[in-house]
């Protein structure tokens, strides 16, 4: 599909849907926002500061409304949205989120109204080098609706789902190939880097790494906010002004916050008990989630190598340096 036709396609997408795409804001930062004019669209090798989870797993989500004892489910009502320009790393992250929340009614309701369009431009920050350059046979392990393989002046289009095909058919474009999703695990087996880090963390624990990180980390939790794969949430009830009414909601939570592991204490004199009290414990738990627990539960890497956490950390903690130290014999 040539440039001109692609611009028409984006205009067509904008007619009935909310198109979300990377764009530079007035200060020169690359963010994800609703696309108002096609000239603002950025398709390149820089990753936006935000991750796509803002739009599919909202930071605050109402789950139920209640009145007296009656509780009513509130499924999210959103306009159909299109993620345009999702990098390969972010597609990996979304594939993992799809698996984690496959039985979650609220997530699936939003996903039903979302079309994901990936691009082949390999990001500059790409630690694991799963995708050093774009290769077509890697597409069958990523979940997407459409994929744009960007060459010099034109785009080769792939569809990954029926929704993607329908979109192209309605637009009137027929020159696309279909990629059938073959599950997240490749034929060669589990990713060796993922297995190596999991094995090192479980079997060759180096306490010094965590004590050092514990001294530097401030428990601010920014890494958990920008990480495309962090999905911890907590549930809370909210009371309305009108008597006996309110809502049950969920919002993002961070394992670095103090109340994350809080339970009621054993005796009235000690009203609360927290299982994590030191920074070292918390930052270890965060790494354990990405490198041990996620691979164990889903056989997928829990870190896609985008580097957003390293770029945002105010204490200059670099996840990739830490991984190299964990792997060092």
């Amino acid at each position, binding site marked *: 599909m040539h440039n001109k036709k692609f611009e028409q396609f984006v205009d067509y997408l904008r007619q009935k849907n909310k198109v979300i795409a990377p764009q530079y804001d007035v200060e020169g930062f690359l963010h994800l926002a609703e696309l108002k004019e096609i000239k603002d669209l950025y398709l390149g090798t820089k990753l936006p500061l935000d991750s796509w989870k803002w739009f599919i797993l909202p930071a605050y989500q109402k789950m139920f409304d209640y009145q007296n004892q009656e509780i009513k489910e509130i499924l999210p009502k959103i306009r159909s949205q299109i993620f345009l320009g999702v990098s390969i790393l972010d597609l990996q992250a979304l594939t993992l989120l799809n698996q984690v929340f496959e039985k*979650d009614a609220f997530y699936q309701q939003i996903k039903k109204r979302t079309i994901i369009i990936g691009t082949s431009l390999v990001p500059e920050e790409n630690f694991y080098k799963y995708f050093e350059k774009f290769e077509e046979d890697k597409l069958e392990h990523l979940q997407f609706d459409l994929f744009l393989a960007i060459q010099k002046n034109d785009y080769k289009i792939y569809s990954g789902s029926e929704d993607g095909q329908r979109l192209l058919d309605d637009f009137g474009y027929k020159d696309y190939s279909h990629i059938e999703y073959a599950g997240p695990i490749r034929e060669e087996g589990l990713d060796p880097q993922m297995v190596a880090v999991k094995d090192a963390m479980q079997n060759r624990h180096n306490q010094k790494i965590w004590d050092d990180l514990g001294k530097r980390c401030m428990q601010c939790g920014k890494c958990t906010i920008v990480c495309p794969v962090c999905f*911890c949430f907590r549930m809370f009830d909210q009371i309305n002004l009108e008597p006996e009414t309110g809502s049950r909601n969920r919002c993002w939570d961070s394992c670095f916050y103090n109340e994350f592991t809080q339970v009621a204490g054993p005796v009235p004199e000690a009203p609360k008990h927290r299982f994590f009290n030191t920074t070292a414990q918390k930052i270890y738990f965060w790494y354990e989630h990405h490198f041990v627990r996620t691979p164990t539960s889903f056989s997928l890497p829990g870190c896609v190598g985008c580097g957003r956490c390293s770029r945002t950390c105010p204490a200059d903690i670099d996840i990739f340096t830490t991984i190299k130290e964990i792997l060092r014999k």
Partner: protein
Amino acid sequence: MHNEYKTYNCKILKINPEAADSKTFTLSVSYKGFSFEPGQYVMVSVPGFGEAAISLSSDFNEKKFFQLTIRKCGTLTSAVHNKKVGDYLGIRGPYGRPFPIDLAKGKIVLIVAGGIGIEPFRPLILDAIKNPKKYKKVYIFCGSRDESTMLYAKEYPAWKKVCDLSLTLDNPKSKKYTKGQVTTLFDIKNIPTDALSFMCGPPIMYKFVMAKMLEKGFKPENIYVSLERHMDCAQGVCQHCAIGPYYVCKDGPVFSYVELINFKSWLSPI
């Protein structure tokens, strides 16, 4: 799509005050397919106050009602305590991996409970009373702080008919109770070391009781512990209850001691 977070209103049929700031609520089963095994829990909620995980503590053979013993220790549990007979509590569940009582059929069972840790074992004890030949022998070691914190004390005579009940108190007021921690009971009573042991109590208790049991010759593969963590979703997604590769809400709360010994994480599970 079935929404796992949906709660069902269960009517409160009876409220019994208990020791240790607790009350036992008898609730009517109000949704199809509700059945549980000892060790499982439900998420109890009051609209406006949130949810909490509470162990089921009634006889699991009963199909029409179930019981929860809830201690008043925060805003949600205070709201629960303010409920009257005829009010409703929001329930979803049951969740969690139960105690493997199928393995205990025809065997000697040792229950070690600290404080309110006796709650998840009440289903097992009531089942043993109803079916006295099901288990070869049930020993109960129950430790508590003092007379005012002994949970289910009124039922002890009925339990003693079928089970061998031993109690200790940290600070007894009367002389008829053994003084000390639960570990002292291992020196007083001779339990066969091939007994299947189930444990529930505060984390500090596990450390000492495990050491004592291994010293006496109990094997790790016959020991099961019930762990506790903060839970939000009760489905292994929100990560609050995660320890190592496990989720206490989904892979627990009952874990085999073998799983905990082979635990490959710097963060201690107990």
